[in-house]
């Protein structure tokens, strides 16, 4: 399931919310969907966290290198 990309997860999450909103689900289905939704949401969160970490790492690296170099050049 973690191989789904963010967009797929979000759209499936939206689908779930709609289904839940419709009120037409059986109790068991509603429960399953809700559980799934929670799982998807947390996967999305993980993905965003990873992305953020990566970005801040890249930025730090880049700025780090840059400043160091600028410093060396003087």
């Amino acid at each position, binding site marked *: 399931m973690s191989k789904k990309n963010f967009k797929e997860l979000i759209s499936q999450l939206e689908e779930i919310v709609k289904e839940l*909103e419709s*009120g037409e689900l059986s*109790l068991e289905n509603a429960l399953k969907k809700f559980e799934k939704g929670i799982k998807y949401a947390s996967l*999305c969160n993980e993905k965003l966290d990873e992305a953020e970490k990566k*970005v801040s790492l890249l930025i730090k690296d*880049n700025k780090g290198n840059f400043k160091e170099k600028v410093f060396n050049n003087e």
Partner: protein
Amino acid sequence: MNKKKKQNIIYTVSDFTKELKTLFEEMYSFIWITGEISNLIIPRSGHVYFSLKDSHCIISCVMFRTQNKRLKFNFENGMQITGMARLSIYEPRGSYQLIFEYVELKGAGSSQTAFEQLKKNLFNKGFFDEKNKKPIPSLPSKISIITSPTGAVVKDIINISQRRFENIFLEIVPVKVQGKDAEYEIVKAFENVNMFSKSDVIILARGGGSLEDLSAFNSEKVAMAVYASKIPVISGIGHETDYTICDFTADLRAPTPSAAAELAVPEKKDLKKNIDLLRTNLINNFKKNILFLFQRVLDLKIRLKNPETIIDDMRLTLEDLEYRMTNQLKKKLNFHKYELNWIKNSLYANNPEKKILKLKKDIQNLTNKTKLIMNLIIKQCKAENNQQKAKLNTLSPINVLNRGYSITRKYPQMNIVKDSKMIKKGARLEVILKKGKLLCQVEKNE
């Protein structure tokens, strides 16, 4: 030979005039002409302006004061004159005029006539032609002076020459300058100098005198010797006003012997000065060139735009791009975060708790209903039973007992005794009364 070429050229007025001037002034630098004077004007400058005409044509002429002073007569309109002149084209007006060097009245004395004839003769032979005149060297290494070795003339020439150029090499060629041998000696001297001397220039000199005194210099032989000389000849004969045939024939005419020396010998210090000047100019000009080139290189160097500004620009561009990229990505992350939050909120808002509560209520309702109905059913059943019970009670056969009857039944068979005969003594009987039952034993059958 350049005709074809020249036809294709479009001249400016100035260029054409200049070309004409050069051409004609060269061609007619020295002509003899005769005519009648008219339109004579002598302004205060002393130059003489007049026209020379014949029956068909007229030419404007001028004779400058210096030449004019030597004339032995005064100009008058109507005079017939013969003179030596050069053609001059005056560029600003595009007009031409004759500038007279020498003028004499037509029909002068016989010696004069003979002189004139010889002059014309020699002129026609080209003796006086400018093109036959040899250039005078600017720095002669040796000067031969054909003149009388005695007298002031040779002294003057030596003095002047040596004053002008101290290490000049002079050679005096002694000749008689008047008398019957003069002509021969002069001619011989020319021959000898041409043959033996390694001179660069010859000065033929004599002091002033009468026409007869100067006769050797007006002779055809001397003129021929001068003309034939391979070494250029400067004549310095008589005074300024004296014009001899030799003067006309010589490569250069000096008005006096001293002047001849001056013309032949350059001032050494002038030459030195000139050379020094040229040398200085040479050095200065070259230095100027070098300085100019240095300056040019320096200018170019200053202009050589250092790519640092390019680098700075690039840095700004790069920073902008980096900022935009990072910003965009952060925005995107934030957007997704908000998106996710929103969906999450929706998810929570739609969690199944409500549904569960509703279902619970439903179940409760159903349960209540079931109970209610069940109770109802039981009640109904009770009612039915009670009804039957009541009916049964009203129909109970025991009701007759209330009126005092009793029911007797044989015991234990419990069949009702309707006939005493059927009962023996001692038999047991049950008697049901209004209230209670009796168990009796038969004592007697009646």
